């Protein structure tokens, strides 16, 4: 199969032919034209083209696209086997959406209850927000190295990748670039996504320093607003922890992240275990360093959040001072492409540089011109955040399905009988 390696999940989103009305709504949200089937006829998803982003799934009026990877029972079995340290790596966007599955208002922030419910279920906690902070340290350092090298003329040990640098947190965006614009791959940040960092960390540092157990007994469950994360977890290169222990004499073979539950899957799991999120005792795993996070880590779930978090840290690293106003309003909100410039005075050299950034969300509608600029070599930006889903992870394909539909279209496309 094109676009997929043997170990990778080949199908995540499939259309239930009994429910499909052939209305083409999914096509209006599909970033890669992976949905085939003529208007009126039953549609299908081409797994080779599909990013597994799940936007069709959350936006189909008839609930026809389904997430076919159901590992809820497998996770429950691991929770109950008494030997496994089951670690839940909870993404930022889950805590503002999982409440909807339990009758709370959309946007209700339920971090405490979510951790409480997970603890009751038997999970250990690794907040992906912690890994998001870690991601900023790695990805931000990478960016700063590039800026110092290209814009401030500082010599680097080896030539860093080209600018602009793209974020690499969104697995659907990474797959999009790999499939459709491979010429951009040198521009991608080499940093793993927060979840993959979380997995590698849980089975190394987490196992030895926090849970004090054999890394092979650590079972990392990503709890994600995202169906594409299921694909990302199946990528063969994400077995860094096993490689790390292999070098140190251990022969085990395991992925960094064992399975991924979507927000919907998590709600099903909790319901199967008769745990009511709204009645769960608040819990903050304060003694666990891997459950601590900064405000920068939590806004990763919003479009512009990675950028805002990165700039807060880049400002500090380059100027030596904290940003005065932390809210970077130009990168907030739902405009398709958001651009901003931040002028920084380098503490080392005294030179000034305006860091230009762009934020893209909704690949289908908004990515094209930004990519064209980069390919043509005339992109004015240093750092570009791309999130596949409109609005970012809060509107991911793994989030609770809202009866009103949660995405929107900038452009209105009528389906004409002759088109």
């Amino acid at each position, binding site marked *: 199969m094109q676009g997929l390696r043997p170990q990778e999940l080949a199908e995540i989103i499939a259309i239930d032919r009994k429910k499909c*009305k052939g*209305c083409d*709504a999914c096509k209006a949200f599909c970033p890669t034209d992976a949905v085939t089937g003529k208007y*009126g006829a039953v549609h299908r998803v081409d797994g080779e083209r599909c990013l597994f982003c799940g936007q069709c799934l959350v936006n*189909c009026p008839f609930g026809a696209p389904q997430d076919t990877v159901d590992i809820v029972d497998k996770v429950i079995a691991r929770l109950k086997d008494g030997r496994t340290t089951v670690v839940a790596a909870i993404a930022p966007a889950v805590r503002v959406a999982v409440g909807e599955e339990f009758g709370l208002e959309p946007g209700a922030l339920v971090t405490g209850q979510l951790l409480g419910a997970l603890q009751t279920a038997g999970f250990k906690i690794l907040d992906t927000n912690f890994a998001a902070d870690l991601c900023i340290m790695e990805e931000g350092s990478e960016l700063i190295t590039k800026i110092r090298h290209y814009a401030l003329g500082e010599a680097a040990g080896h030539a860093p990748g080209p600018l602009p640098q793209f974020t690499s947190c969104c697995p659907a965006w990474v797959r999009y670039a790999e499939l459709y614009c491979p010429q951009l791959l040198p521009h991608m940040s080499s940093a793993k996504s927060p979840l993959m960092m979380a997995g590698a960390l849980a089975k190394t540092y987490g196992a030895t320093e926090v849970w004090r157990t054999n890394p092979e007994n650590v079972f990392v469950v990503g709890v994600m607003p995202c169906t594409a994360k299921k694909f990302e977890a199946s990528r063969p290169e994400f077995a860094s922890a096993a490689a790390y222990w292999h070098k140190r004499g251990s022969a085990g073979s395991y992925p960094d992240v064992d399975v991924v539950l979507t927000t919907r899957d998590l709600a099903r799991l909790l319901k199967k275990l008769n745990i009511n999120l709204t009645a769960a005792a608040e819990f903050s795993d304060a003694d666990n360093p891997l459950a601590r996070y900064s405000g920068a880590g939590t806004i990763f779930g919003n479009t512009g959040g990675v950028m805002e978090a990165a700039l807060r840290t880049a400002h500090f690293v380059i100027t030596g001072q904290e940003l005065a106003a932390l809210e970077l309003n130009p990168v907030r909100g739902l405009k398709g492409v958001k651009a901003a410039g931040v002028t920084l005075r380098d503490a080392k050299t005294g030179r000034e540089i305006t860091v230009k950034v762009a934020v893209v969300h909704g690949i289908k509608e908004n990515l094209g011109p930004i990519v064209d600029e980069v390919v043509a070599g005339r992109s004015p930006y240093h750092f570009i955040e791309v999130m596949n889903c409109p609005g970012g992870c809060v509107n991911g394909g793994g989030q609770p399905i809202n009866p*009103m539909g949660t995405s929107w*279209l900038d452009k*209105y496309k009528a389906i004409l009988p002759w088109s």
Partner: protein
Amino acid sequence: MSHDSDGPRVLKHPLSSRLFHWGLILGFLPAALTGFVLWLKPGSDGFVNLAMRIHIGAAAIFTLSAVLYTLLCLDRVVAFVRRIFSYDDRDVGWLLVGGGYPQKMFLGRKIPVPPMGKLNSGQKMMGVAMLFGGIVLTATGWILYAFIPLAPKAFIYWADQLHLVVGIVLGLSLFMHIFLGIYNWGEFKAMFGDGTQPLAEAEDHNPAWVAREIEPVQKAAGGRQLPA
């Protein structure tokens, strides 16, 4: 055309109504047939897609016919609405014997039925279904056609459910209407001919209409011919 042998005639369906009926034949009939195809989705992508295109084209004809008829022949529409909402105990009697149709079809026996107006009880009930169902089908149909990627999911979902249920009910009613329309051959001739019917036949089918709602044509001098 000469009708002299039949005796006096009555204009049952004026030209405007007959044209509207043709609009329904070219609009509602193909839309209903293709609607069943779209519901059951038999056959290839191309076939179902073709059905969808015909469905939409036919829907446009149907909608245009209905809108034009309402705007240009408001009196006909109002007369129709008045008729389909007027019921009395004669309708109960008519419905109890099924309008005499089962006896006529299966036993070959003509039984006396309560006198009906221009529309009998069954036609009136179908008229009510057609009026409301038609409005619902048209509105939901165009919403499904034009607003699908745009309007909220629940809105589209319920529009589709309504469109489906009402469409099935009216689609099946249509087949019954076609059957009975052909079974009552005189009615068929009137609708697809010049709209007239022998007065005697109308008196037999629609006695209350003949008694109360018709009047002799103001004759032009020397002949009875008038433009329809």
